[in-house]
């Protein structure tokens, strides 16, 4: 099992993600420079950061890079594809996930720990979680406000494509628990098939108890789900 973490110019959570995959999850993970990525992996992760400086619009330049041709192929083949933060923005700009990510309603960068509710366990990155389970992870973004029109939202719900929502400590999707003004408190979504997942929070920063103010390691569940998915289905 080999996982690629793609480094675009300006990625900055690439080393963190590789560290967690290797040291915490125990899978083979390569840091791959975007120009060298040819898709010959079992799974691929687009890490957080500011690819191409977020110039023009967050994620859009990377979304048009040659590496994404191979990411799209992997997505079509049903292989796990994960976008974290800036990676989520890239997947959306590349048309692999629905919706849009726009500036936080506060118009400020927000870095803090939030609570997330698991809305579906059918995906390549949530199959070891329980539905309605509340996870703790940090967010760190300026453009993380998920937007989709009403029709799109209906489709997301009908097709079970909402993976995570922002909630309070008791698991309620309240306006106060929504840090950035996302539609329906959405923090992460998947494609129809459930093999492509994008989320704004950072699971790689929440995979070791020592880094969590709560002593939790919930982020690990995403990566372990990916491992489980590959072991069972591939």
């Amino acid at each position, binding site marked *: 099992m080999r996982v690629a973490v793609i480094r675009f*110019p300006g990625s*900055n959570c690439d*080393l963190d993600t590789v560290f967690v995959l290797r040291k915490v999850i125990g899978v083979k993970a390569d840091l791959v420079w975007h120009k060298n990525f040819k898709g010959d992996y079992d799974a691929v992760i687009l890490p957080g950061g*500011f690819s191409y*400086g977020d110039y023009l619009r967050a994620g859009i330049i990377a979304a048009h890079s040659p590496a994404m041709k191979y990411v799209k192929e992997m997505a079509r083949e049903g292989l796990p594809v994960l976008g974290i933060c800036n990676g989520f923005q890239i997947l959306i700009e590349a048309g692999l996930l629905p919706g849009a990510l726009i500036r936080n309603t506060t118009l400020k*960068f927000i870095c803090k720990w939030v609570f997330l509710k698991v809305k579906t366990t059918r995906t390549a990155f949530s199959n070891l979680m329980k539905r309605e389970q509340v996870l703790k992870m940090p967010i*760190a973004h300026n453009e993380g406000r998920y937007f989709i029109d009403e029709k799109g939202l209906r489709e997301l719900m009908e097709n079970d494509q909402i993976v995570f929502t922002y909630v309070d400590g008791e698991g309620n999707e309240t306006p106060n628990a929504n840090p950035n003004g996302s539609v329906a408190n959405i923090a992460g979504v998947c494609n129809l098939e459930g093999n492509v997942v994008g989320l704004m929070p950072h699971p790689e920063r929440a995979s*070791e108890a*020592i880094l969590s*103010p709560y002593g939790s390691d919930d982020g690990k569940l995403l990566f372990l789900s990916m491992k489980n998915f590959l072991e069972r289905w591939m």
Partner: protein
Amino acid sequence: MIVERPDMQVKVNLTREELEKAKEMLGREPNIVELGMIDIMWSEHCSYKSSREVLKILPREGEHVIIGPGQDAGVVDIGNGLAVVFKIESHNHPSAVDPYNGAATGVGGIIRDILCMGARPIALVDSLRFGFPSSPHARWLFRYVVKGIADYGNCTGIPTVAGQVEFDPSFERNCLVNVGCVGIARKDRIMPSVASNPGDVLVLVGGSTGRDGIHGVTFASKTLSEKSEEERSSVQIGDPFMKKLVIEATLEAVETGYVRGLKDLGGGGLTCATSEMAAKGGTGVEIELSKVHLREEGMTPYEIMLSESQERMLFVVDPKGLDKVLSVFEKYEIPYSIIGRVTDTREVVVKLNGKVVARVPAKLLAEAPLAKRTSKKPAYVEKLRDIPPPPMPENLEETLPQLLSSPNIASKEWVYQQYDHEVGIRTVVKPGQADAAVLRIIEEDGGNRGIAIKADCNSRHMYLDPFNGAAGALAECCRNIVAVGGKPLAFVDCANFGNPEKPEIFWQFEMAIKGLAYMARGLGIPCVGGNVSFYNEDETTGRAVKPSTEVLAIGLVEDLKHVTTMAFKSAGDVIVVVGKTFREVGGSEYYYIVHGIEGGKVPAADPNREKSSMNAVLEGIRRGYVTAAHDISRGGFAVALAEMAIQGGRGAEVFLDNMPREPMRIDELLYSESNARFIITVEEKNLDNFISLCRNTGAPFGIIGRVSRSNRLILRYESLVLEYDVHHLEKAWKMPIWEYMEGLRS
């Protein structure tokens, strides 16, 4: 003054005497390019001509020191083949006229200082000072300085983990922006900023050279005036995306083993980088300006040599490995140009299309003549020290929430939520959780260890008593590191003062450095680098900033198991005060906020008292006795206790009669800012063990109460009872800065 030449006239900051001296050393009239080069290198900012002699008294040696002051950053051995590299610098003047770009490029500059030692930057620290937030101008500066730091730091992927914000009317126009950076490197990969081998190739890498930032350092070496707004062109524009590429490319290039020297281009640009590297190496350099990749057409040699365009690094490369090194820059698609070679002439020779346009001995540029400054104790010092104590406040109970709401004490969440403090997955102790940040070491074979980081200074103490104020800043910084379980190893400092040509200002500077040296020697903590920023004055009001020697210290956490935060953990834990409280309320936040006075005798700094308290607390933490620790500083005992309760979301009942103290009033006992004190909690079963540690180190202590199950914070003193709801205190502490910045408080 204006210097005329047949082809043009230039304004230089050099004095007439300095110009004569330069002529004499050169043996002829300098031409325009040479004059510009000498002007910036002899500026206060580049040359430390006023401060060099005074700074010599700081202790620079210690068992952990690999590189001390004089290089771009200090380097400290942390064992296991690893070294910590760190430095702090000011970016005050640029931030005062263009807060967003000024602060952003300040961050950019300090990152390069760490990078050019061959280290990966892993943390940023920012200490900021503004006018009181009720002033719209102060809020404007505050808002955009924070945004500048956030946008730049976040993009480069370096977490901003610690810092300080102080508000005082003296910073109204001349805000202070001190930015620090901490990096980690393998000891065998530490890069000197030296050009030692004639024949080595000089490669200029990164951002293109433009007209921005010309005269940045001379701008920083004079006082701010109404005209300063016109000097916005002296402020550079940052590009954090380019910086991120430069960071990764530089670290990869260093790994090739063919980079022999490395220096960033900051203040003084190409002139400073070439002359300092040659002077340090006892070599010379020859560069060809037509090779430099430029941003604009028609730039003159004068402009190219003086430009302070951002995101540039100068590499000294072994010619044998040149291709290998260049291929790294090509991979990252970073512009570079081969601009010249190291020579053995000891001269900086600048050519344009083969024709020499400047030829100056490297030493002449790098070693500016000293400026003799006189010092005189200002009249205000004794006058303010001897003011009578204010009367007892009518309603003592209200003073604690009032102090917690002071912007100087209130939560800085509004600030640090805008900083990515998690990236890098090292941040074990995050902003707001404890007295210092702790970053874990994740390098191979680094052990289960961490680096504690903190920056501190109380400018009001410094103003009233620069000696004790500066000594206290270092002591407080070290206490903060101890409180999280770290052993302080070394510090760097950033001195911010007014115009050193004024004897009263220079006195403040001298006394501050003496105080710092006294505490550093006493604690055995060496100074490994620093920065001096003078001319922090507003010409219109003639007012200088309150002097500040911001201290950035690092400590080593031997085992991450030891990491301790300030939050009360469990009901029943016993609360112990370590260290004696003296009647030292002068310069306190209490005097300022409650009584509106600035004066009195500020807390004395005594390294022996510090050591006994720190040793007891650190040993207690390492043995696992201590469940929470917090140093007592601004706001005194009561504020420290309230912060522990707020963080833990639980109350406590304490008896102040048990505090070790000299006789004083209750308000003084609550709010004295005496040094060498901590509040800690221990589990009952470890109490005796902890007490014997205090006895061993000679630290005075008092067992004052217990953490309670309820959310009531109850303070008892003789027959007096002060009682608070912790949630109420939390609200008073948490909201003020949000409210100021979101327009809900004025």
